[in-house]
């Protein structure tokens, strides 16, 4: 088969089984767009801003586990994509981002729409390529998909100069079946001896804790984690990125940990004597004050990336490897050994946890006349039967969604944790809905975040991808306001959005259904109505209590046992 560079790009996408290509055209990629026009195996989704393309591809990837694919032009197309690339990088999401580049002969001459895309994206990609020769294009595409999806996943940028896609230069095409890179061999099997040692440590624990993270979702290890945790019967806490990997409705789940984690999760972290971290990276939002992190615990850490191990917290037993085989091996050793998980009596530990739980740290005022944002999420959970895909933006609403929507399945909770990118939620919902047209997809957002990629409302209509937007409108950049209240003596410097659009009209202008909900009694009916409108995108503008804060909260530099609790919730720390 003889193909031009432009055709090769598309052919490679077909070979990789790519369903959707999220993109936006421009001069440097017009040859590729022309090749795209002449086929229909790969469906192009025309976004309204390149940031939206990257987030939509990212949402698609998080929900499906398959790589998200993006096509943008050189210069501003590429720079607009950078926020989305960095978002994916921080959360280890597999993306392949194809960027057009100016023709090879003019690279370096400050040509029209030239930027050094490889240079700009280098610190926020797993790897990137500049393709200098059409004969290497297919091989490079193959490598890009391979690198993006194996080991610790991440975004890969393939920068293609326009002349490399020249439609008039055809070369023989064959898609490589395999790829081997002498410099890249992600390790998959954990070290047997380390695994054995870890099992001994776990079985000897009096106050054990399982701390699992996004790696369990990324590595599709949810079933293995659930088997492991149930076999041991240990309490489980999950990071923001791990939610759903272990069922939130399981009694062993003590809630999310960290800055806005539950009282019981954080207190248990502080008190535990053996901690096993599974696909989690000891982020500073999780550890709080490093010096006082799990002060009584010996730590086991399973991670596929050696660089995640002992990066911020030194661990006692590192295990580098893929999660499922490691946990399965642990279960096997436990099942075949003499010491049973319940040989040590841990009823005292569970009693302690029960007492911490009794504090009801997520308590909020249910009798308020204003709509409480927590209430909206609870109702959303009920109306969707806990089965929706929930994307979110960044801020207080994100934390409430994480705290109050009880995810029982992985890949259902889709948010930007590492970079914390406002604007992520709406385009991500688009990507999810395209992947699962029959599923309920909700985007929990705030009036500030939603405006950062609001233009994608048009894309939702164009591709008939109806999602439900839950705008928790508190009139403030609530998360910023909360910090200003606590840390800057309520000096609300530029965190109030004085001129908000009429979101209902805005939704209508984009061809969707708009609703505004002002009283608690209307919350449930509005949600029910919105989800009944199966083929419409509904923008629900919930006017919520502007003074509500996210609790508990561990302020920067504080330890796990130094939480600020909601008013009316008293601390029972002395019980510990």
């Amino acid at each position, binding site marked *: 088969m003889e193909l031009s560079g432009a055709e090769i790009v598309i052919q490679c996408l077909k070979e990789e089984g790519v369903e959707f290509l999220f993109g936006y055209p421009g001069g440097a990629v017009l040859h590729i767009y022309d090749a795209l026009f002449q086929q229909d195996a790969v469906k192009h989704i025309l976004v309204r801003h390149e940031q939206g393309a990257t987030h939509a591809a990212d949402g698609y990837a998080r929900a499906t586990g398959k790589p998200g694919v993006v096509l943008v032009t050189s210069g501003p197309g590429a720079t607009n994509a950078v926020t989305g690339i960095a978002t994916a990088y921080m959360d280890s999401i597999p993306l392949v981002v194809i960027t057009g580049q100016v023709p090879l002969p003019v690279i370096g001459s400050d040509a029209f729409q030239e930027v050094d895309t490889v240079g700009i994206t280098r*610190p926020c990609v*797993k790897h990137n390529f500049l393709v200098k020769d059409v004969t290497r294009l297919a091989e490079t595409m193959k490598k890009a998909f391979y690198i993006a999806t194996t080991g610790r996943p991440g975004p890969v940028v393939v920068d293609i100069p326009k002349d490399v896609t020249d439609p008039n230069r055809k070369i023989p095409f064959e898609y490589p079946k395999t790829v081997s890179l002498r*410099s890249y061999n992600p390790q998959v099997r954990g070290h047997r001896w380390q695994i054995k040692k870890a099992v001994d440590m776990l079985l000897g624990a009096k106050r054990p804790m399982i701390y699992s993270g996004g790696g369990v979702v990324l590595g599709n290890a949810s079933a293995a984690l659930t088997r492991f945790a149930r076999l041991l019967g240990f309490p489980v806490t999950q990071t923001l990125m791990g939610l759903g990997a272990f069922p939130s409705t399981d009694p062993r789940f003590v809630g999310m940990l960290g800055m806005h984690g539950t009282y019981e999760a954080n207190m248990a972290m502080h008190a535990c004597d053996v901690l096993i971290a599974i696909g989690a990276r000891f982020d500073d939002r999780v550890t709080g004050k490093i010096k006082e992190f799990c002060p009584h615990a010996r730590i086991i850490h399973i991670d596929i990336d*050696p*660089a995640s191990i002992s990066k911020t917290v030194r661990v006692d037993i590192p295990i580098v490897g893929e999660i499922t085989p490691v946990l399965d091996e642990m279960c096997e050793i436990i099942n075949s050994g003499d010491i049973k998980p319940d040989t040590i009596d841990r009823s005292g530990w569970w009693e302690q946890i029960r007492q911490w739980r009794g504090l009801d740290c997520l308590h909020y005022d249910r009798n308020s006349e204003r709509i409480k944002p927590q209430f909206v999420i609870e109702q959303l959970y009920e109306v969707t039967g806990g089965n929706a895909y929930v994307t979110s933006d960044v801020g207080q609403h994100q934390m409430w969604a994480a705290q109050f929507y009880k995810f029982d399945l992985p890949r259902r909770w889709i948010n930007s944790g590492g970079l914390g990118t406002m604007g992520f939620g709406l385009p991500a919902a688009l990507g999810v809905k395209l992947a699962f047209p029959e599923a309920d997809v909700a985007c929990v957002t705030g009036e500030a975040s939603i405006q950062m990629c609001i233009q994608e409302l048009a894309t939702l209509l164009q591709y008939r991808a109806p999602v439900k937007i839950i705008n928790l409108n508190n009139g403030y950049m609530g998360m910023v306001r909360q910090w200003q209240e606590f840390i800057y003596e309520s000096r609300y410097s530029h965190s109030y959005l004085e001129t908000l659009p009429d979101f209902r009209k805005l939704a209508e202008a984009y061809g969707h259904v708009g609703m505004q909900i002002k009283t608690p009694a209307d919350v449930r009916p509005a949600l029910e109505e919105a989800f009944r409108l199966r083929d419409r995108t509904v923008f629900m503008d919930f006017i919520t209590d502007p003074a509500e804060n996210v609790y508990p909260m561990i302020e920067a530099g504080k330890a796990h046992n130094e939480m600020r609790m909601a008013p009316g919730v008293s601390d029972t720390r002395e019980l510990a």
Partner: protein
Amino acid sequence: MRHIISILIENESGALSRVAGLFSARGYNIESLTVAPTQDESLSRMTLVTLGSDEVIEQITKQLNKLIDVVKLIDITAHEHIQRELMLVKVLSVDNAARQEVMRLVDIFRGRTIDVSPTTFVIEVTGEKSKLDAFLGSLESGSIIEVVRSGVTGVMRGERGLTL
């Protein structure tokens, strides 16, 4: 502590900037960095001298290993090793006595005079960093016109090598 990390890296454009970028982005220290192709044209050998606590050095080697272009690396300071640096020094030396003195120092430090003009010498010295520092220290300070140092390179002693 000071560590010398030897790296085999794909001889691709951009590979060097990935390493340099990693150090600046993560706030690691680089004392010196040398790079040149090896007998295998597809590979470059890089020698990187860095300072840091054991924890930092561990992260540095892990992060370097994570770069797709890095094929293999070793911290040669963890082994018996030899390190060398090449230095070229141009000195201004006009009167006879001073010229004699420079020649004597070159001799003591086993250097070589590789260019001579009526008023200057270019001297080549190789050795460990401390030797080069000592040589510079013994020259009359005002006489140095320029100093060019290659940065440190090194290998492990014995049969073991950093090879594929």
